[in-house]
């Protein structure tokens, strides 16, 4: 019985990653290259294509992994011109957010930018590498100004202030950087809680966990509009407050 279950996990995993791989190749030749060559607003078009690609991926997930229920708050899809702050529990988190937000950008580990095709895709999508050379000096101001324009045009920036995935689902420390970026752009913050993605795709595992009944939930726990001009404003305090809201939401959900 266990072998059949493992086999199911393996087959579904291979199907999903096959879509990811071959779908990316098809998107590359049929959509990304024409967009690269002919689109008037390449960044925006690339973001929309990635949104479409990931949307198809999660439609397949829903069709193949019937025991996983998706509960996506409608308001999440309607977020615009905001800095979205999320907890991070699985590799699925960023691609799930891309599948919900048509105009999105984020800060990505710089090593991903060196991967052939993927790096090209990230750069043309207006994503920002977290490498010191991009986040220091004049390059940082250029990146921040691009984020500001992106937000002003209705796009969103999503960031995981924990920096990396939590291995045990518990929140780790929040880096204040994203809050300074929000202040620079004078943007509102949407605190979005992700749950259950680590049940479907566990950190450290290659296989999707398709056998367990699980629930993936995405919801806004708080919308913050800080008074950035206030004498008392502090990015570090805002980071601590935001983390406390997440702690509270996680513990309330655990009590249910």
């Amino acid at each position: 019985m266990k072998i059949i279950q493992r086999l199911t996990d393996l087959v579904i995993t291979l199907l999903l990653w096959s879509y990811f791989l071959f779908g990316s190749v098809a998107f590359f030749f049929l959509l990304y290259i024409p967009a690269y060559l002919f689109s008037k607003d390449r960044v925006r078009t690339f973001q929309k294509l990635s949104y479409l690609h990931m949307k198809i991926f999660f439609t397949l997930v829903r069709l193949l992994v019937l025991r996983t229920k998706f509960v996506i708050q409608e308001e999440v899809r309607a977020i615009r011109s905001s800095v979205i702050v999320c907890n991070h529990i699985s590799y699925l988190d960023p691609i799930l957010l891309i599948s919900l937000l048509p105009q999105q950008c984020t800060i990505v580990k710089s090593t991903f930018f060196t991967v052939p095709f993927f790096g090209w895709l990230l750069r043309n999508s207006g994503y920002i590498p977290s490498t010191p050379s991009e986040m220091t000096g004049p390059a940082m101001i250029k990146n921040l100004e691009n984020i500001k324009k992106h937000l002003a045009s209705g796009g969103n920036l999503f960031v995981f202030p924990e920096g990396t995935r939590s291995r045990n689902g518990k929140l780790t420390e929040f880096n204040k950087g994203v809050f300074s970026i929000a202040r620079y752009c004078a943007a509102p913050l949407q605190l979005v809680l992700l749950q259950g993605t680590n049940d479907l795709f566990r950190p450290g595992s290659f296989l999707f966990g398709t056998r367990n009944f699980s629930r993936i939930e995405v919801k806004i726990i708080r919308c913050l509009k800080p008074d950035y001009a206030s004498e008392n404003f502090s990015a570090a305090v805002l980071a601590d407050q935001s983390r406390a809201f997440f702690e509270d939401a996680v513990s309330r959900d655990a009590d249910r």
Partner: protein
Amino acid sequence: MIREEIEKEIKNIFRREFEVENPGLDDNLREAYGFDSIDAIELLLEIEKMLGFELTQEEKKQAMEIRTINQICDYVEKIIRARVAAGK
């Protein structure tokens, strides 16, 4: 705003925002206090608040190369002079 006032206000910002008490005027902020690029952004926003106007993108880029309190004071003085000369 004279140099002494600028220096005093910058030191206030460091105490309030970065919990750095009495930084040396020529200390390398990165090496001595672990001042990073995100701190530099925070400092720029505080300087804007102190001056009461928004800095241009070019002015902000210049600030990202600053390493010491003395250089910050020079930078603020230069911006004030430029604005006065431009009649703003």
